[in-house]
């Protein structure tokens, strides 16, 4: 979707404010919001693309007003209800009407599941990839209402394939529960002038990881 989350190239947000390496969290509640989001993710009822879409699919003002963990919290509440882990009434009342039969993550599995992660790489199908490093491609101009990882600023733009990341889960279908649709993903390099026109930094290029379905030979 063309949401407020799609921030590349938007003007007016002001300076970046650096910060020291610690603290990791800035409020006690952020730790809890972080942990319940992660723990609920391990229930296996949604994938990472669904989680991203739950966070970005909102009114732009809501998105921009929230701090990042507030956005996580909003996404979590939506997913809990959508995936029938919590009923809307339970969420409104913040009161349990019965335990769930989902398998919660036990404390002694935390280290193991974090170390394992959730790889998105899938086996490469037989045959050569569609594009090779050095090849010129053009991104499609798509504006799906659902989740996509093709940012607005690099749609309809010409670039050069630089890296082949192998076969990866395709977020656009995975986010809507339509299957992983695994396909080749590449790092594509765009000259800043192609993205931002005259006056762009001539020393700048932007590398964007893009799937086969976003690309055409050019």
């Amino acid at each position, binding site marked *: 979707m063309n949401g407020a989350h799609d921030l590349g190239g938007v003007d007016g947000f002001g300076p970046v404010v650096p910060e020291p390496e610690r603290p990791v*969290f800035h409020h006690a509640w952020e730790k809890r919001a972080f942990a319940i989001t992660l723990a609920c993710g391990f229930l296996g009822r949604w994938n990472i693309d669904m989680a991203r879409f739950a966070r970005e699919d909102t009114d732009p003002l809501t998105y921009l007003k929230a701090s990042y963990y507030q956005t996580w919290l909003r996404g979590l509440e939506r997913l809990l209800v959508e995936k029938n882990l919590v009923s809307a009434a339970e969420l409104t009342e913040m009161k349990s009407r019965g335990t769930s039969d989902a398998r919660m993550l036990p404390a002694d599995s935390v280290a193991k599941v974090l170390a394992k992660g959730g790889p998105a790489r899938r086996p490469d199908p037989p045959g050569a990839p569609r594009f090779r490093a050095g090849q010129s491609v053009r991104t499609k101009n798509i504006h799906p209402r659902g989740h996509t990882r093709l940012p607005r600023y690099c749609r309809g733009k010409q670039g050069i394939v630089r890296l082949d990341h192998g076969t990866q889960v395709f977020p656009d279908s995975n986010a809507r529960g339509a299957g992983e649709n695994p396909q080749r993903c590449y790092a594509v390099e765009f000259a800043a002038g192609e993205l931002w026109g005259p006056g762009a930094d001539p020393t700048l290029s932007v590398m964007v*990881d893009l799937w086969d379905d976003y690309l055409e030979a050019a």
Partner: protein
Amino acid sequence: MIPAMGGDHDHHHDHDHGDNRWSETQLRVKALESLLVDKKLVDPAALDALIDTYENKVGPRNGKRVIARAWSDPAYKARLLKDATAAIAEFGYTGRQGEDMVVVENTPEQHNMVVCTLCSCYPWPVLGLPPVWYKSAPYRSRAVKEPRAVLADFGVTLPAATRIRVWDSTAELRYLVLPMRPAGSEGLREDALAELVTRDSMIGTGLARAPGQKP
């Protein structure tokens, strides 16, 4: 400088827009956690373990060790640039949000910088959780368009001729920048070298410190 932890008033970076409803959010998180515990969807001890992991165990220190090794050991550096995931796994740094790693090397000719314009993808096993600015609109909007102006906000000025590659992490690849080894660091051991690596230098918004330079 390490500011005091916690509290409701030391917070200013990720919420400078006047929506000061922290206490409301705090209450909501607390209520939601209770609900999830009551429904046996989360184990309170698991929550504490998750927080402890990312607050105390996994952080930029991991990445610093990787970078120091690459600076010290040419064979390791070659492995790191060829198959970052495997080379980083040699330290035991694996898993969530670092399943598929790519390391990009800064040189006098080319500077690399990492952003996630669409959300806040970040290599957790080597850097921990992202700083507020990395997740914020100013960084996400400007990094792909005016990285030199962003670098200026970090006090960094690159030579005018240096090419800049900004990596927008749109897929499940996680990028770690291998900063340039600072002048004057010849002969330092790995643990001393690791002290020169900063979190920001591994994102590309900073440079590694010269020996003796203040943190």
